[in-house]
């Protein structure tokens, strides 16, 4: 079991959120799992946490297709925050469009955070989706 302090799930589909939460129960120990229905509410919450100096998420599950602010737009704004800590961001999509993968790769190469690409359906959460230090050690 991985111990994670804070996890964000950003997805407009309640079933996916339900699924991720369910899978996390068996793989991670976390007292702070937050779900957001689009990028906008997530980034707003993050900014609030930064302002208040509370704990920031260590792992983010991020959907791409969402109304108001989609996954890519969220990533743009998230990277612009220039956080000191490296965050693991699991990009989750049902898209099999090569364009989406390409875009993910561009982000991966151009940011300091760890980016994973996960195609739906997801059946289990890998240790690397939660903790990168394990891999190094």
């Amino acid at each position, binding site marked *: 079991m991985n111990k994670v302090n804070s996890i964000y799930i950003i997805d407009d*589909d309640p079933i996916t959120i339900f*699924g991720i939460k369910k899978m996390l129960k068996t793989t991670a120990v976390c007292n702070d799992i937050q779900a957001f229905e689009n990028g906008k509410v997530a980034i707003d919450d993050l900014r609030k946490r930064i302002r208040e100096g509370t704990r920031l998420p260590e792992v983010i599950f991020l959907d791409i*297709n969402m109304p*108001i602010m989609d996954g890519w737009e969220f990533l743009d704004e998230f990277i612009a925050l220039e956080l000191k800590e490296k965050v693991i961001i699991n990009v989750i999509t049902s898209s099999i469009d090569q364009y989406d993968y390409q875009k993910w790769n561009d982000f991966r190469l151009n940011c300091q955070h760890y980016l994973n690409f996960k195609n*739906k*359906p*997801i059946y289990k959460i890998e240790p690397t989706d939660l903790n990168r230090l394990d891999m190094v050690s």
Partner: protein
Amino acid sequence: MKTIEKTHTQYLLKQLPKATVLVGKNHEVIDFSDSWLAIFNLKAKDAVGASIFQLILDDNTESHEQLKDCLLKNRTTTLRHKKENTQWLESAFAPWFDEKENILGTIIQTTDISGEVEKELELERIKTMLQAKSEIAKVGSWEYTLETEKLVWCDVTKRMHHVDEDFEPSVNEGIEFYKQGYSRNKISMLFHNALQNGIAFNERLIIQTATGEERWVMAGGKPIYEHGKITKLLGTFQDIHDQVIAETKIKESKQLLTTLIENLPINVFLKDKESRKILVNRSECEYIGASANEILGKTDFDFYDEKVAQISRDEDLEVMRTFKSILGKETICVKKDGTTTNFLTSKIPLINLEGQAYGIIGMSMDITHIKQKEDELRNLINITAVQNKKLVNFAHIVSHNLRSHTANFSMLLDFLVKEIDEKEKERIMEMLLHASDNLLETLENLNEVVEISTNINLDKKSLNLNESVIKVQQNLSALLQNNKVEVLNAVPKGIFVMCVPAYLESIILNLLTNAVKYKDPNRKPKIELRAEKQDKGVLFRISDNGLGIDLIRYGGKIFGMYKTFHNNKDARGLGLYIIKNQIEAMGGHISLKSEVGKGTTFNIFFNE
């Protein structure tokens, strides 16, 4: 007796018509005829006893030596010699004997032969010249004598037959040199006709030479009469092979060129300096709709629209002035009856040997149908590009939306299989039902879109826009009242649009609903509907004072499927996608202007 005889003899000698002189052993002149004195321009008293040499010789050393030689040798001989370089004389020398055969001297008889010699020389000259001429012109000759049946060929004629110089043909042999068939039959007939009826001939025929080569010749013949009867045939024989071949080739090339120009599927014409047509081919005649004779000598002004003719005339002048060809220029030609044709025209200057332009060669290819095809093709490409874009977009939507649902099914089923807890199982089952409903709804939405996109035969009707708005307003009266919306229907009553009734209703309904959904909570919602007649259709405007959309951020996605931009629970992200499809299916288009915090205006253009 002797004296008498002598006198008699002397007197006789004096009268001799032929110039005669008696010369003694010491070459002194003893006696002479008057005619001899005349030839040499002498007087009798000067001549007697004088040396013959002094009398008849002049400076011509050649003759001098020969004469001297003749006299000294005293033999019977004849000599031609010149006097004063102008006169030709012929002198016969004979020894002069007495009764006892003793030589007394020499008898010289002289004749003035200047005329003969000149004739001889002239003949020689003519012969030489004839020879030269016949060699150079390759003109040979032949002669047939009727009496002896002898045929004589000159050397040139023989050479033309490729036979040796000692070849002597018979008439039959001569005729057999002609190529079997027409040539041989013809020459036989002509030869016979000339002999029998005295008809001269000159004919082009083919011979087959001794080496088997076929050559074109010009054979001529002419009868020669003697005492009213034909005695001979004289003829010429000329090798005209190269000439005939060249002529044939020129004729063939000309024929080829004519055929080519005449049958080219493009319009060909030659114009003179004044742009009068001096040559037209069939295509040009067909295009103008007149015969070549009717066209020749006329200008474009006689057949085409004046403006078009002037443009063409200006082009002609420019080409002739600059010597620069116009090549493959797209032109439009309008005939007097208004028929318009697109041409690909070339104009090339005609330049004479002095380097002056004396007209132009023109070629025009009718590309009207190509132009039409091009336009159709461009149109088709545009349509295809739009369709393709739609299709890709749609495929993307289908794959994304259907995949997301099926992914959910897979995940939930995976959970269900592994789950032991009954309560949790129930929750998962609920989720599965929810997922199934979502999938059904998505399929319905997709079906709706497909129906619009595939409906080719739209049943468009002329609909009153104002009335259509009122109808939708009535349907939405509950929604509008609940949200306290102020609707201003400012659409002029006389405006009609060509639309599918259901589509028009859907368009107005969606836009009004959207305006209500995205109203600004801090303002009293207000919707204005306006319309105006435009060049080729009607512009319909729906403006609201709602939240507005950040066009910089969402501009490209507004009409996309499943795109929502506000936090609204009712948003399906389908309305704008569907009405855009409906409007485009009817040949119109939709756009919008919006400012966040101020409102949105949708502009819909309906095609006539």
